[in-house]
């Protein structure tokens, strides 16, 4: 198996520290959110998190309990919902905001079906906490152009989908790739998509769709 493409597993607050989201509540999050979520964070950015935990232990912090209201900037719209500290961005989108393009498949950052673009970068929304996504621009597959030059149309043209459940994640990963690399080689496409898994076996079409979408984007 290849290494996974570098895709954030912990949301922006972990890597970018203060200034976004309720970082002061990190200690409570680590205490209360269960081992699975904590492990995901430690795996991704162990050192940064440990530093923050230490800082949090030294300071008196606000304790977050139950649900809190958050405002998420989804596809250019400010959407409000109530989430728990442990609620993932994916679950906030799907269960609370009816944004169901991103899919829940593995729920631990290994298949890419939940990929969204957060401040321009593809992230696994299943391992990003909703509270840390506040203040970020969240773009999901529903926001992409469905016109003939868009990534979704390239997938249809190349029959790069079968059951279609992994497709939003692949489409999003391709869009995120083309946003930073408008002219990728086949190897670059594969590398960028290595965080995504398709069970029906549509990879051959997906590679061609990515290359076609790059061409269409240039022509557009």
């Amino acid at each position, binding site marked *: 198996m290849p290494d996974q493409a570098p895709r954030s597993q912990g949301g922006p607050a972990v890597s970018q520290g203060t200034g976004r989201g309720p970082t002061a509540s990190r200690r409570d999050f680590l205490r209360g959110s269960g081992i699975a979520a904590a492990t995901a964070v430690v795996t991704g950015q162990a050192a940064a998190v440990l530093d923050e935990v230490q800082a949090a232990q030294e300071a008196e912090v606000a304790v977050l309990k139950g649900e809190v209201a958050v405002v998420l900037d989804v596809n250019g719209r400010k959407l409000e919902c109530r989430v728990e500290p442990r*609620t993932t961005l994916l679950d906030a989108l799907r269960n609370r905001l009816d944004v169901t393009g991103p899919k829940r498949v593995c729920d631990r950052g290994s298949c890419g079906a939940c990929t969204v673009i957060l401040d321009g970068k593809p992230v696994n929304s299943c391992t990003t906490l909703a509270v840390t996504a506040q203040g970020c621009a969240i773009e999901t597959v529903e926001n992409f152009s469905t016109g003939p030059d868009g990534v979704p149309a390239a997938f249809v043209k190349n*029959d790069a989908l*079968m059951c*279609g459940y992994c497709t939003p994640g692949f489409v999003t990963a391709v869009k995120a790739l083309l946003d930073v690399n408008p002219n990728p080689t086949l190897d670059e496409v*594969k590398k960028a998509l290595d965080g995504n898994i398709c*069970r029906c076996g549509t*990879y051959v079409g997906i590679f061609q769709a990515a290359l076609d979408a790059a061409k269409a984007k240039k022509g557009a």
Partner: protein
Amino acid sequence: MGWPEQPKVVGSRVPRVDGLGKASGRIKYPSDVRPEGMLFGAVLYSPHAHAVVKSIDTSAAEKLPGVVAVHLLTEPGKKVRFHGDDIAAVAAESEEIARDALAAIKVEYEVLPHAVTEAQAMAEDAPRVAGGPNYRPPRARTTGDPDAAFQQADAVVEATYSAPVITHVCLETHGLTAQFKDGKITVWASTQNVDGLPQQLAQTFNLPEADVRCYTEVMGGGFGSKFGPDSWGVAACELSRKAGGRPVKIFLDRAQEHLAAGNRPSVIGTIKIAGTKDGKITAMSADVYGTGGVAGGATVLIPYPDVYKGIPNIRVATGEVATHGGGARAMRAPRHPQSCILTESAIDDLAEALGIDPLELRLKNFAENDIVAGGVDRVPIYRDQVAIGAEAIGWKANYRPRSENRKAPGPIKRGIGMALHMWGGGGAPGKQVAVEINPDGSVTLKSATQDIGTGARTLFAIVGAEVFGLKPDQITALIGDSDYPPGQASGGSTTTPSMMPAALVAAQAARDEFFARIAPAYGGDPKAMRLADGQLFVHDEPIASWTDACRKLGMKGVAVTSSAGPQMGELSSNGVAGCQFATVAVDVETGIVKLEKIVAVQDSGLIVNRSTWDSQVYGGVIGGLNYALFEERVMDATTGRMLNPDMEMYKLAGPSDIPEIVIHAYDTPAMRARGVIGVGEPPTVSTAAAIGNAVSNAIGVRVPHFPMSPMNVLNALASIKGEA
């Protein structure tokens, strides 16, 4: 009546009519729907492989704010028989609360000794999985005199080959959203059986079938594992009833999906095979078992495929072992991939022992004939297909005996392999399609079938377009609703061969009625009419556009519901061949196998949509290479638990694992004349066997155990005497 001889749409490449809905994330899967007032359900399952449930205390869970209903799926005194077996289900205002409620349920178990591996289950004094013994030695079926033939042969090879249990890993997990209100049930189910699932629920709840309705607009993969509502679907209905009719959504989490939602049985087979110097296989014996956990389905077909049935002396004993593991379910070509591995590995090993090119050995041992539906003989088809595949993979240039490949300089060894397969893929009669032609020119075809990912909706549109001389996007195909006329479940590659004949017959009947209705406006002779290019032709003269002709219907459209009836046999058939080839590069220092190229040659009668047909064949090959290299359900003999119920330690191919794949449609006039045959399953059958043969050809020694993981490859290399 038959398929048009020179079709305009059938057999071309038509983009999926629902493709953009899927690719834009806008179409709603059953796991996406959120009917008003919906509650979130979750299922508690056993952490033990074998235990008696002593007590279940749900009181704390029930008291949690936000918990609306709790339902037991077992009761004190009953046993759990595998890690993942059902205990209870809850419904709550949020998914987080539902999970908290599961954690608050106190279950007391008396843990019993377990048998989760085949070896544990076959040991003396093994704990019993069901009432009887875990393993009953199967009765051998014997043809000829294998023992005498083994004695007289020029070469005899005996080896034990195996492949582990693998799971379906449907990306949309099993589940449904249910509303049980006013004595009626509505479900939005991820199912491959829209027509049959309501019947099962109706029976469970003792309701008239008409009072259960199933919607499956699209669904996220089934591969043979999604035919029923399952215990958790029934639980969702119960919880909805308890919650006063609020809808309840239950979709399994990834772990339980691996544990409880089906798997492909393992296979462990000792094969003895013998032949003569001139390349005649004279005898074969097989002693085979496998486990389907608490369910059956582990027996195999030997020799495989049927084209080898001419081997004169055969003894086959194929049995099953019950283990404390989740029950097997049909998985993409059930029994065939395992059967293929056993025979096709043994044939390659015999070829090596005889010093004969394994491709030649195969050709020399085809039966006199291999007759399938319609009197079609598969033997010449196999010969053609093998020639095509050999050419595409470059067999002549690339094949060398194992002994030679092994001595190649450097740690990277290259090899080539092949294998043959077969499948049925015929349709079921009696499935109905309703066709409507409306005065505004719109056309709908509808039936209670579903798109499991094969593009069913588009196929209906293609057949409609063919008959009415329109474009596929001018046809509305309605599927995924159990209130539509009875359609086919997606199993055994039968959906297309069941539904397309019915669609053709119904559309032609609707067209004929249409002609009769509008004839007075266009010269009075319906027999002089035909439809093409969006126009009505009378005596081969274009006389009106489709929409203008439809206006002549007045207020009332044409509505016909029909099934293929006696025409079925002319419009569809059963029984396909196929072969696959692989080249690999194996690093003998790390044991890592890199696929270089795979060639798949496949017939399947009349191809309806070449675009989605290609996708199914590619998908079959990729499923097969997953089976060959990556997939394995790992059971821990000590704890009785599955060690990798996830998607990182349960390995699946990602983008960088995909080699060059060349597919060849064996699409001849004779094949087209057979009518429609399903293609979902055959192309996944022989991939693993072909790759296994290529790996063995590369490194000079058989890797007897799938997957061809670094560990299994290195173990095989270590078994070479003096080279460990």
